[in-house]
């Protein structure tokens, strides 16, 4: 990773991200509710993410951060509210008055513009690093094997793993696995990339290599939502920092403000606990 040179994203993607494009929300949650049995995990969450923005979401465990990301990624049905991408409502078919959840096959197509990186990497153990990165291209994007291999090799090189392309996940360190997972999501050219505590399962000395990739992505203008406990990352990289508690967003501000003078007592207590 140290010899990271050049960009992670394709040059044309970066150019497009930096072009003076309209600043509407790429992805938006509108009053999202989600229940597990009688427990309400999300209680009316609304927030949007603009193109090129990085939003960090902090909050205690059980506050609904991961559930929110899964809802944004269309991996979970909503019990209320909407997910919108570039103004278009996702996940449901607008029928006569009542909205019906789309079939899994149709949802799959809508998901291709949303990338997701998991806490436990979730690499496919039966495929090499290269195979993991290629799978979405060949199975979803319909790219031929040879072309997919080329794209995947390039992306692995950009995250510093060219020399590990033929290794299986079980032979890689946690940091390497997470970088493969990021590459796997990036080759799909998602409009937004969601990270669910991407460094929480890593040994401390491996956190840096993953964060550096994420920082580089942010610099290049990638639109990202990052659920994290890495205060340093949230402070240094995010354009907005959100605090979640008990299924709601209770604080939303620019990092300086968020960390120096949070408006909520709950946020202050959480930050004290995390910093301690």
């Amino acid at each position, binding site marked *: 990773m140290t010899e990271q040179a050049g960009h992670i994203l394709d040059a044309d993607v970066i150019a497009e991200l930096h072009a003076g494009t309209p600043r509407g929300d790429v992805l938006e949650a509108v009053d999202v509710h989600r229940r597990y049995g009688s427990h309400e995990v999300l209680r009316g969450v609304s927030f949007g993410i603009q193109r090129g923005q990085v939003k960090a979401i902090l909050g205690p465990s059980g506050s609904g951060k991961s559930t929110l990301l899964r809802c944004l*990624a269309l*991996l979970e049905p909503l019990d209320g509210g909407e997910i919108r991408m570039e103004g278009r409502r996702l996940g449901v078919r607008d029928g006569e008055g009542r909205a019906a959840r789309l079939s*899994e*096959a149709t949802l*799959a*197509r*809508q*998901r*291709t513009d*949303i*990338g*997701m990186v*998991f806490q*436990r990497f*979730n*690499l*496919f*153990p*039966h495929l*090499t690093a290269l195979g993991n990165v290629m*799978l*979405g291209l060949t*199975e*979803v994007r319909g790219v031929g094997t040879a072309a997919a291999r080329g794209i995947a090799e390039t992306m692995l090189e950009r995250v510093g793993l060219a020399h590990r392309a*033929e*290794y*299986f*996940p*079980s*032979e890689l360190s946690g940091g390497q696995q997470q970088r493969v*997972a990021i590459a*796997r*999501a990036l080759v*799909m050219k998602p409009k937004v990339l969601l990270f669910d505590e991407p460094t929480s399962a890593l040994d401390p000395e491996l956190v840096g290599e993953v964060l550096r990739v994420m920082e580089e992505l942010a610099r290049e203008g990638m639109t990202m939502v990052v659920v994290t406990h890495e205060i340093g990352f949230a402070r240094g990289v995010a354009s907005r920092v959100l605090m979640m508690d008990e299924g709601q967003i209770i604080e939303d501000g620019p990092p300086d403000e968020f960390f120096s003078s949070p408006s909520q007592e709950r946020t202050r207590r959480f930050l004290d606990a995390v910093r301690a």
Partner: protein
Amino acid sequence: MDVQIFLDALTSRALREGLVMTILLTIVSFGIGMALGLGVALLRSSRFRVVRAGAWTYIWVFRAMPTLLLLLFFWNGLPQLIPALKGPGYPAFLAATIALSTNEAAYAAEIFRGGLLSIDDGQRLAARALGMAPASVFRRVVLPQVVRVVIPPAANDFITMLKITSLASAVSLREILTNTQTQIATTFRFAEWYTAAAIYYLVLVSIFMVLQAWLERRYVWLSQREGAGRQRLSFLRGNTSAR
């Protein structure tokens, strides 16, 4: 025990022909049984209660039936219920295949169910997050991992199937044991012929064990597969640790 008679039995046409029939019945019944079992296992996790109940009932009934009873039922009972099955259009091989594969499917369904349960939820989640369609998720992500998990128990079932085909002697299918008994009926050389038949089964199972080791080696997900393979083959030394 007459060595010459034993050697003659070992190389006899009767046993060679029986061997072909045994292998054929084993492979066909096992293949159909596994395919059917995978289907039943998938139905057991269906969204619909009726479908789940149907799959459960199948396993309940066919796992409870003695294989010999199934064989006799499909050979003698079924033609009584469906007269069209009387006569040469319904050979013993077909009856035996139905009996053995329906029985195997019940066991295979449980093996596959265990295999499916063993796959971490994160695997499907990651595949879905990539935008893969349900069929694609199953074929490319779930199934390869299930196959690896089910190889050892399925191989066990295969060996059981190989031996259970001898029950087809009850419906006079000309496999190894039927042909052995036919020879004994005229020669009365019990020990020689039974031992010869036993050798056939032993060799068959041994060959299969080599195949199983090869198959398991193919499912070792390491870049240095050769080294891992050698370690896997160490079952001969009673060491099954495979890192």
